[in-house]
């Protein structure tokens, strides 16, 4: 009802109410221990990524062929790879790349997915049919295969891998927001907004979109985890980062020949991928519990 009020004062009240809602969500998130663990893991990796150049003991490409494949020691905490490069330094720099790919690709898919999803959900009819079938077509391809195909067309590089990952996640967000829009547009306050002659654009971006944000945030967090794995997979297949970029998946691929001889070269990048993905998944689960009203008692 407050949406109808024309003056400014109640709008700040709404903001306050929204803030309270988020506070509520945070409180329930805090209670979930696993989610907090996830958050901490994610924060640690974000910290590593941000301060990578400051905290790494060595650069990413300081080859010392004489010191290759050394096991973990006090000098090289996680050992050295087949070029004698410090694995710890490379993993920390790798965090930058993986998180960057994760965040940017997911934000990209959210923007495009939301736009298409809102159009489909709000206008319905043939717009809906067109966009939804288009999503169906994209979902008919195994997502990894589609990503590989896109990279093959664009040419292998980290940026193109990022674009491919963003594209393959578009239909997921699009469908999610479409279903959300379908239910929200039946709400009375939308009818009311239409009744006072509000423009479609304002209804869409000021009323419908903010109200469908919660599932997007949850899905987005979980999608970051998937995106990191997909980036690593593309890197592993040689379709992502170019040498000497310390991308985790590429580090795995580079050291797979040394699995028996120097297992740490594969072990640590693998652990790094696993930990970040686990962190984002736990955090995403926690967020879902906190933000989804149906889960609340």
């Amino acid at each position, binding site marked *: 009802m407050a949406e109808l009020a024309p003056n400014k004062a109640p709008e700040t009240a709404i903001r306050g109410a929204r803030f309270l809602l988020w506070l509520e969500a945070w409180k329930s998130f805090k209670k979930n221990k696993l989610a907090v663990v996830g958050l901490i893991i994610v924060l640690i990796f974000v910290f590593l990524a941000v301060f990578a150049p400051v905290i790494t003991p060595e650069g990413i*490409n300081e*080859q010392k*062929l*004489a010191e*290759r494949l050394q096991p973990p020691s006090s000098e090289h905490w996680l050992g050295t790879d*087949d*070029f*004698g490069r410090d694995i710890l330094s490379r993993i920390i720099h790798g965090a930058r790349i993986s998180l960057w790919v994760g965040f940017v690709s997911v934000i990209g898919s959210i923007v*495009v997915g939301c736009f*298409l999803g809102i*159009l489909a959900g709000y*206008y319905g009819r043939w*717009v809906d049919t*067109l*966009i939804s079938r*288009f999503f169906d*077509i*994209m979902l008919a*391809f195994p997502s990894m*295969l*589609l990503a*590989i*195909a*896109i990279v*093959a*067309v664009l040419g292998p590089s980290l940026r193109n891998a990022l674009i491919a990952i963003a*594209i393959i996640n578009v239909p997921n967000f699009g469908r999610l927001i479409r279903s959300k829009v379908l239910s929200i547009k039946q709400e009375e306050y939308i009818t009311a907004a239409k009744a006072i002659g509000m*423009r*479609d*654009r304002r209804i869409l971006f000021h009323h419908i979109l903010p109200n469908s944000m919660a599932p997007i945030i949850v899905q987005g967090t979980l999608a970051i985890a998937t995106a990191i794995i997909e980036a690593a997979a593309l890197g592993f*297949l*040689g379709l992502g980062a*170019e*040498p*000497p970029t310390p991308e985790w998946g590429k580090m795995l691929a*580079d050291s*797979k*020949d*040394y*699995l*028996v*001889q120097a297992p740490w070269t594969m072990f640590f990048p693998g652990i790094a991928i696993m930990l970040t993905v686990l962190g984002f998944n736990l955090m995403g689960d926690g967020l879902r519990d906190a933000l989804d009203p149906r889960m609340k008692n």
Partner: protein
Amino acid sequence: MNKKTILLSLVFVFILGFALVGCSTTTEEAPPPEEKAGETNEPEETKDTEEEQNKESDADPVDNTLVFGRGADSVGLDPATITDGESIKVTLNIYDTLVKYADLDTSIEPSLATSWESSDDGLTYTFKLREGVKFHDGTDFNAEAVVYNFERWANGDKSSFYYYSSMFGGFKGDEGHVIQEVKAIDELTVEFTLSRPQAPFLQNVAMPVFGIASPTALEKYGESFTENPVGTGPFVFQEWKRNDKIVLVKNDNYFMDGYPKLDSVIFVSIPDNATRLNELIAGEIDVADGVSPNDGSRIEGESDLQLFTRPSMNVGYLGLTNTRPPFDNKLVRQALNHAVDKEGIIAAFYAGQAEPAKNPLPPVIAGYNDDIEPYPYDLEKAKELLAEAGYPDGFEMELWAMPVPRPYMPDGQKVAEVLQNSFAQIGVEAKIVSFEWATYLEKARNGEADAFLLGWTGDNGDADNFIYVLLDKDNIGSNNYSYYSNDELHDILIAAQSNPDQEARVELYKQAQEIIHDDAPWIPLVHSTPILGGKNNVADFFAHPTGSQALTKVYFE
């Protein structure tokens, strides 16, 4: 206004839709090459089960089948039309040549010809042929068959009989064509008349690509002969499943008494080095070709496996396309030669199983110039030369790395990364680029690369087969990928080719290497010693320096 926005957004959706549908149609075309990479395990699994079935069915009598695991499938089985080592490995066992190489080096031994003599001027060669030899299809082997084969090649063109043209100077009617006439004197005598003396003539004739094929089969199969090979060799072709396996069975009428000892040979393709080694350890294959140097110690550690080393007769190099700036500048090429830590590369990615190269020619070949002083690894000197050449701040370049393991370079990507790192230290920024193998070769042959990793395994043990084939201006567009052209060198190489006096030839080749060293068309990197793994009970397996070996004498202990 309202409708306008809807329309606009629809247009946007359409455009996006079409763009992406564009992507999705390409998915139908694009995946095959990727699938190969991604699915390497799958065909193997099916093959495994098949093999197991085969083994089960064959196991009960004496299992006398050798399973040979290698990195790639053959391209074709008509030896005259192929150039890849994986094809030769198979055809060598189906066909015989007039003369052949010894088990472990490239000295000449009788094969289909029992004896031969040449005239003093080196212009006629007369071969006495072996009596009573029959092709696998029952056709008699005789002088007419030899003439038929050589006529077939001489009347071909560059796109079909590639090796023939590079070894014998072209085809009938070409100015440089060496074999003027091949004549059947009687049933078992053939006479070759040459237009100019060719010192390595016997070495060339012994190359497995000049295997004598059955004339009746050639006429019967025509184009599809490459899939239905018929020769006189120790094994008879039975079956070929593309990208999976080739099955050969014993030729009971082989002319060498008591050979071959094996009942059958199965060549299986297992592209991944690590997988192939694991199959060997698991006992699925008997011999594994192309073992990664780093895995040598692993084979030695397994009590039921043995390590074979192939005598080194190859060179791995970084070719600098001499026509592309800045590599058209000799100083730049020399500078890059100073910026490579060959010892480091060998220690790291060849497990020490290689020698640093300073010449295009490997040291085992007569004519190797050991007096050449290699460009030392000296980054300061490299920077000076770059500055002198007018590039004090370096430049940007593409560095092509081969996508597949080769005997002369087990891991091109890693070598490229080391080079990239050293070049960066003299200000040269290299971007590592790779393509699918066939594309890689084609593009490099067309001179599209700035610098490319590549190598060569000698075919016949002659210096001509390295220097002339790889660096003479005649071979630009075929095997001279670096587009290096030097007239002085050309004259020396042609003189060396036509001079029957071995000592004079050695001197000429030494001279040639001095010119090449100074012009620095490549960065010669290594002469590697390729290793193979085999089960302990495999006996008399001779890893031949040319990279392919006849399995005639192999038996299980």
